């Protein structure tokens, strides 16, 4: 209310001043040469300084209109006297002063507005976290400064970000400017009794068009303002390009920080897992060592019947084999961590015989578990390292026995699969949760809810995977918690 009342009050004051001066001039006996005529300069200059070129011109016009009857009547009455000429000069001075001072004021205000707009652009872009944010803040600041509808389009790679509209319609003024890189002025945008001017200028950074600035307004959008908008477009282009680069840098920094945090967490987890592994591996190694130590002491210190000696020998042999497997697993894992492929001695392996032998050994070791074997007839021999294959199957069947309740069935099947053979080991145990299933092939990983009694170093499946892949085969694990787990290994047959 106050902002609208102030100009109205100023206009009324100016009008009253002009009328009062005219009344004084009309009553002055000196006529058009009266000194009071110079006082017209004050309201005219005031209007020019207050309202720019329009105010100055209108005030000068009003002053000339009011003063003219006094001057012209003098000319009509006495011809071009000195007084009349002085009056005519005063009319000319008034007209010139109002127009020139008004034009200078308008120009100075435009320059000020331009500087303020540049500052507003810098402020709007500074501190915006994303390019979208910078674009939105910039649009709001420019709309406020220019007192117009403003839209901004910025290219960010293949995508075009738009502030102030939904999208850029093909064939629109903005689309044309983006395509040609040249500014476009449309004096009548849309319908309506009052024409709406539209001006679109390209945003340029490093000699490339990176977007467009569109300004629409009912009313004037003159050549001077359009030139200023073009210059502003260049500034906005550079500012947006800087904002885009800053946003990208910030995004990269955030991503890097996230990756570092993730890697740190993973390293900490691996460190914890390795510590746990050392503890478990020590225990795993100690068990057969203790057995070997105990039985060898018995053999050394006591005289035993031959049958007992033979039994102790078998036990010691078994424990030595177990110890050997653990050491082999550790060596394979070490090679894997160095990026090396496990060494294989490949030969043709009769898969049915091998499965039968392994299952026989495991049946003896875990008599409480029924283990069913089903090998399809006529399977081709596998192109594999027998020792590695034994370790693969022993690990998988051993896991099936270890993680399923006593009495539950464990089945081992072998079927032809393409150019190879698929070995399927299936149990009806507690299963593996989905989150753990994705990680069971990672070294040292043990599912959080793995059966406490089922001890292990967490390297078995990692070694199995490495061995299978060294053969050029694949391994797939499917599990349903509470139902069971199925491991499918596919290995190539002898060609």
């Amino acid at each position, binding site marked *: 209310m106050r902002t609208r009342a102030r100009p109205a009050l100023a206009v009324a004051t100016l009008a009253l001043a002009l009328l009062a001066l005219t009344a004084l001039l009309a009553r002055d006996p000196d006529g058009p040469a009266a000194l009071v005529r110079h006082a017209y300069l004050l309201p005219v200059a005031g209007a020019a300084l207050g309202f720019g070129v329009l105010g100055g011109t209108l005030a000068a*016009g009003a002053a000339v*209109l*009011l003063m*003219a*009857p006094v001057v*012209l*009547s003098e*000319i*009509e009455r006495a011809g071009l006297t000195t007084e009349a000429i002085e009056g005519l000069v005063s009319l000319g001075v008034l007209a010139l002063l109002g127009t020139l001072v008004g034009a200078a004021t308008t120009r100075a205000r435009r320059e000020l507005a331009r500087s303020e707009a540049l500052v507003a652009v810098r402020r709007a872009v500074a501190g915006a976290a994303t390019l979208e944010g910078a674009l939105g803040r910039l649009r709001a600041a420019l709309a406020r400064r220019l007192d117009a*509808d403003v*839209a901004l*389009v910025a290219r960010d790679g293949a995508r075009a970000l*738009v502030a*102030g*509209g*939904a*999208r*850029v*319609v093909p*064939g*629109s*003024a*903005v689309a*044309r400017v983006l395509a040609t890189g040249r500014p*476009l002025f*449309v*004096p*009548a*945008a*849309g319908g*309506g*009794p*009052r*024409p*709406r001017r*539209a001006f*679109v200028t390209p945003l340029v950074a490093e000699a490339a068009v990176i977007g467009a600035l*569109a300004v*629409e307004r009912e*009313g*004037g959008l*003159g*050549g001077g303002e359009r030139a200023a908008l073009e210059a502003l477009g260049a500034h906005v282009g550079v500012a947006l390009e800087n904002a885009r680069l800053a946003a990208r840098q910030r995004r990269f920094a955030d991503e890097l920080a996230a990756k570092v945090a993730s890697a740190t967490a993973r390293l900490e987890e691996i460190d914890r897992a390795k510590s746990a592994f050392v503890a478990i591996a020590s225990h795993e190694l100690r068990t057969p060592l203790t057995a070997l130590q105990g039985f060898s002491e018995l053999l050394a210190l006591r005289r035993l019947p031959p049958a007992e000696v033979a039994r102790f020998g078998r036990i010691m042999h078994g424990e030595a084999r177990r110890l050997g497997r653990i050491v082999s697993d550790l060596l394979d894992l070490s090679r894997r961590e160095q990026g090396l492929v496990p060494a294989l001695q490949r030969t043709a392996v009769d898969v049915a015989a091998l499965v039968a032998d392994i299952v026989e050994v495991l049946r003896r070791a875990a008599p409480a578990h029924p283990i069913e074997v089903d090998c399809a007839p006529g399977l081709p021999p596998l192109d594999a390292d027998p020792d590695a294959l034994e370790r693969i199957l022993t690990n998988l069947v051993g896991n099936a026995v270890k993680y399923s309740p006593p009495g539950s069935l464990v089945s081992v099947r072998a079927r032809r699969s393409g150019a190879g053979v698929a070995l399927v080991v299936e149990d009806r145990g507690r299963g593996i949760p989905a989150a753990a299933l994705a990680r069971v092939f990672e070294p040292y990983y043990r599912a959080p809810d793995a059966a406490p009694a089922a001890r292990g170093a967490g390297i078995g499946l990692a070694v199995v995977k490495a061995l299978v892949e060294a053969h050029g085969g694949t391994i797939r694990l499917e599990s349903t918690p509470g139902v069971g787990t199925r491991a499918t290994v596919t290995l190539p047959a002898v060609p």
Partner: protein
Amino acid sequence: MWALEQPCPERPPPLLADTPAALLAALAGAALGAAALVAGGWLPGAALAVAGVAAGHGALLATALAWALGGRTLPGVGLVALLALAALAARSHPLGLLAYAGPPLVVARLAARGRLAALGLGGGVPLRGVAAGAALGALLGGHLLVSASLTLGVAVGARPAGELLGALAYDAGANVLAAECFFRGALFARAQRRWPAAGAAALSTGAYVLRYLVDPLLPKSVELVVGAAFYLTLLGAANCWLLRRSGSLLPGLASALVFFAAWRLCDAP
């Protein structure tokens, strides 16, 4: 936003698109024919005045309506007929002046139906704009009366009441209506869609002043011609500004009516 979401036309339509050239030619022919018949003594002199009103103001109104209605000429033809009837009636009987109410009523009816929005008519009455227009007309008219009486030796208020009423009716029903509809509502509005407002106002005002300077009714003394050009330039430019500012032709109509009322108070020596 238009610049983003609407297809941009390659170039605007021509400035004189939808001009009813055939009707204008017919009106010019009718006026020339009437002049010839009057000169030959086959028709009384009043017939030329009637033909002049119908052809001159009718041409302006018909062109303005054709531009606003996408080239339709029938309403314009009707208005030409109404203008001829009004001019004839005004010369036949004192109450015939009332016939000058016909053209404004037809224009108001078309505006109420929303068909003259392109001329700035039909979007309601901007009371503040009309008041500003009337004030502007009063300012210019008052100045005219003062300066005319002081400098040109023109008698003010010496015209007989009947003649004054006739002139006012003519201004309201033909002169001001046709001039504002064409020079502001049609020409200025169309020109400012192609060029800056100042250029459009210059074109419109120049054509407006020219129209009155070639008017056979304007006394041809230098002082009156210069004075008319001066005031009509101010009035034309001010009315362009009023239309641009308010989006309505009504403030300009008010300003021109008030100014011409003052003009009619002057009686050239």
